């Protein structure tokens, strides 16, 4: 079962601070989406609203055509896993899994057991005394085994070491292929995960600045390097992010469609066109004044 998500003019205010400004987007569902944003960009606020952890201040959210907040049927279709989770005090790992199993309609016990083994989770240990990496592993185990039609992971693999993270990506991908659902991954480790995303959303300062297919963003970014004057000429009228100078050579990042003719012109003027990683694009797009220092 795949559920689509529609968000319309969503706003979230904490007192006088506005965390989300008029967010509007539509997700068809059944895909793996990447949500990128700097710390404090409003990523977690948005995800909290989707998961009914919070009620929005204005605007509407609809998942599978229904508003999810306090909607019993919808809330049990959206599983939101944050890094350290919300463990009951005194719950053991086994208790936490048992609680999750009793709440999620699509829970798969066998799959959960497999993940527990894979991550070597200590069933009898208190969930709150686990190491950060183990807490993350427990979180993703619950998230994956819930098989919720909308599953959201908010940097829930940050505390894990690289091998555990790669296990997660592998498990996520394989289970997604076997049981297609809507998955949203919010991350800082962009380069590691970018190849998993079908679509990418970038949030900055509470606004949605990008919503595209991953492949098309990738092709839109180019690093143009060459003699400074030629670079400036070429970059005229285009969206430019960042620039670096080394002697007479200049390098800028250009964002936008570049057809073959434009590319050939660039090369003929002695310019070099290079690729820009999604991570670099993200850094450029979300730059703030204090970053240069």
């Amino acid at each position: 079962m795949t559920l689509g998500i529609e968000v319309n003019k969503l706003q979230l205010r904490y007192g006088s601070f506005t965390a989300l400004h008029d967010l509007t987007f539509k997700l068809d569902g059944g895909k793996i989406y990447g949500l990128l944003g700097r710390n404090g960009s409003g990523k977690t606020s948005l995800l909290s609203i989707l998961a009914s952890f919070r009620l929005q201040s204005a605007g509407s959210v609809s998942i599978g055509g229904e508003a999810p907040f306090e909607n019993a049927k919808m809330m049990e279709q959206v599983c939101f896993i944050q890094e350290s989770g919300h463990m009951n005090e005194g719950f053991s790992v086994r208790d936490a899994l048992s609680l999750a199993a009793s709440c999620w309609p699509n829970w798969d016990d066998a799959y959960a057991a497999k993940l527990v083994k894979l991550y070597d989770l200590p069933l009898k240990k208190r969930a709150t005394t686990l190491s950060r990496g183990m807490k993350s592993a427990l979180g993703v185990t619950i998230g994956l085994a819930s098989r919720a039609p909308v599953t959201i992971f908010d940097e829930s693999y940050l505390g894990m070491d690289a091998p555990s993270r790669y296990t997660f990506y592998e498990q996520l991908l394989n289970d997604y292929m076997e049981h297609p659902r809507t998955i949203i991954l919010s991350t800082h480790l962009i380069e590691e995960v970018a190849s998993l995303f079908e679509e990418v959303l970038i949030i900055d300062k509470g606004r949605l600045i990008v919503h595209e297919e991953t492949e098309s963003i990738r092709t839109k970014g180019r690093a143009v390097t060459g003699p400074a004057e030629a670079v400036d000429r070429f970059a005229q009228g285009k969206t430019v992010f960042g620039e670096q100078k080394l002697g007479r050579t200049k390098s800028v990042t250009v964002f936008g469609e570049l057809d073959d003719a434009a590319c050939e012109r660039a090369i003929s003027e002695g310019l070099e066109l290079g690729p820009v990683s999604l991570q670099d694009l993200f850094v450029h797009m979300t730059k703030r004044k204090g970053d240069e220092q």
Partner: protein
Amino acid sequence: MFDDRSPIYQQIADKIKEDIISGVLLEDEQVMSTNQYAAFYRINPATAAKGFQLLTDEGILYKKRGIGMFVSGEARQSLLAQRRDVFFEEVVDKMLAEADKIGVPVGDIIKRIESVKGRDEA
């Protein structure tokens, strides 16, 4: 595995083409499914599917309903022909430009080619 030079689906298509040319994948042989590809390279299956679609559109792959994707019979030939078409522009001209840049006389290049040709015919 994949870099940022071109879209991943393009790189997948190029990889499969390379495998066909070099004989790793034979004509009428079944290729891995998009899901297997996705799992192997740890990429989104939609991306793998896009790459396969590209190849299907170009006639390099064809689909057998219910079974999977196969390399088409003329795939190797047509790919080799494509490569031959652009060989002079993309390989030879570029070599000559490089030679020119670093100061290798064309005469030397011709001598080299002749000696290789002589060796081959011997």
